[in-house]
């Protein structure tokens, strides 16, 4: 058994590059998903019925589709309609679009729970449009939604493992390669599990520091 872990250790570069790719994928798509959500959420809450309806349809639709199928469609299905993306682009696009829907719903929930008056005060004090959103609406929103956004980031990391099926060299894919090359399944996959755990603990530490900021203001 110790010998098996020795083999995994000898392949540490492969594993670390997998970990690096998982991290890059997750961070990039989480950031992009959040940015898209900043646009989707106001649309979800728009008084324009048609706009709110379209975005609501997209958000609910995404929430009903398994991520793996969505990734399959982006990678294998889109070429049928003439859109061919490589596995990195497909993976990133799929993760981003899919999670943008979840982030939008998270922000909508947090926004709806925010008191109306401070935002109104922002308007009365001359903030408008982007300034109002960026300076007055967003900061308390992010503080309130911090823990849920953290949960979603963990979900994104786990979703990124699905991308092993489109041969994206992320952490699970790296563990698979090591296992098929040396036949050390336990050592290879349990190491991957612990690395995933480590990533989540980092996120949880981040969430609890945001939570401390929020507690001081509550």
């Amino acid at each position, binding site marked *: 058994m110790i010998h098996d872990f020795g083999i995994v250790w000898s392949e540490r570069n492969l594993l670390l590059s997998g970990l690096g790719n998982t991290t890059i994928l997750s961070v990039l798509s989480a950031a992009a998903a959040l940015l898209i959500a900043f646009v989707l959420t106001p649309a979800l809450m728009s008084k324009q019925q048609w706009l709110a309806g379209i975005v609501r349809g997209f958000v609910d639709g995404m929430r009903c589709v398994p991520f793996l199928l969505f990734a399959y469609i982006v990678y294998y299905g889109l070429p049928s309609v003439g859109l061919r993306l490589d596995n990195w682009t497909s993976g990133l696009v799929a993760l981003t679009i899919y999670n943008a829907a979840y982030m939008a719903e998270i922000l909508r929930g947090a926004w709806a729970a925010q008191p109306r008056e401070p935002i*109104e*005060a922002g308007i009365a004090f001359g903030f408008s449009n982007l300034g109002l959103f960026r300076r007055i609406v967003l900061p308390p929103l992010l503080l309130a939604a911090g823990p849920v956004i953290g949960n979603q980031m963990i979900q994104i990391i786990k979703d990124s493992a699905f991308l092993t099926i489109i041969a994206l060299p992320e952490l699970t894919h790296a563990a698979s390669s090591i296992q098929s090359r040396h036949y050390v399944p336990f050592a290879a996959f349990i190491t991957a599990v612990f690395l995933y755990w480590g990533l989540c603990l980092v996120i949880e530490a981040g969430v609890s520091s945001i939570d401390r900021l929020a507690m*001081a203001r509550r």
Partner: protein
Amino acid sequence: MADGSKVLDVAGVSKRFGDLEVLSDISFQVAKGETVCVLGPSGSGKSTLLRCINWLERPDAGQIYLTGTEIGVTGAGIVMSDRELSRLRTRIGMVFQHFALWPHLTVLQNLMEAPIQVQKRPSAEVRDEALALLAKVGLSDKRDAFPAKLSGGQKQRVGIARALAMRPDLLLFDEPTSALDPELVGEVLVVMRELAHEGMTMVVVTHEMGFARDAATRILFLDRGRVVETAPPERFFSAPETERARQFIQRYAGHVANGGCRT
């Protein structure tokens, strides 16, 4: 009355929510240095009137002028862009019933946020002024606290200081003490009285009869969305002209006599 130049001119403002006519054809003026108290039973449209003045609510009809500039509509009769409207709003300070402080900013940051971000004034100057305002409302020691850690009375004093930090031409108060515990009302009224004496131009929606009687230069009595009576406080409280006003005062008579308990 002070020098007589009009800070605020409200001309024939009406507002309805669906079938309900909340304000109908309201007209009044406020001269520089005046403190106008808007009184009336609940549901009479007082808060809506205030919110129409800075276009938080868009009036259905009528005009509102701030030192001669029409709010909300450009010369050509077109509704203003958000940017133009915002610029005018910075000249009208507003104090909210539930304080409406920004929870993610400290007390001092609450005061400095709009002057720096919206008015684009130099931050050193804004900071000095904000510190002076906090001293004025007696909260210098709370400058680095977050709003959530303050009492209601303290929050509202910060709310007033935040409005003053904009150097407004006009201050609007929307029932500034009605969300406070009775023992905290006094500290807020002290600050408001001081402002009135200093010649700040204010429109105050309130149920504090004591404050209205001894700090107002004029009373505007609203009932069912109409200005029923407007008079100096002495005359309004001792010899109201209308039956509606008489009934209203009678209901609050005890409170007036002992100088302004909450209603």
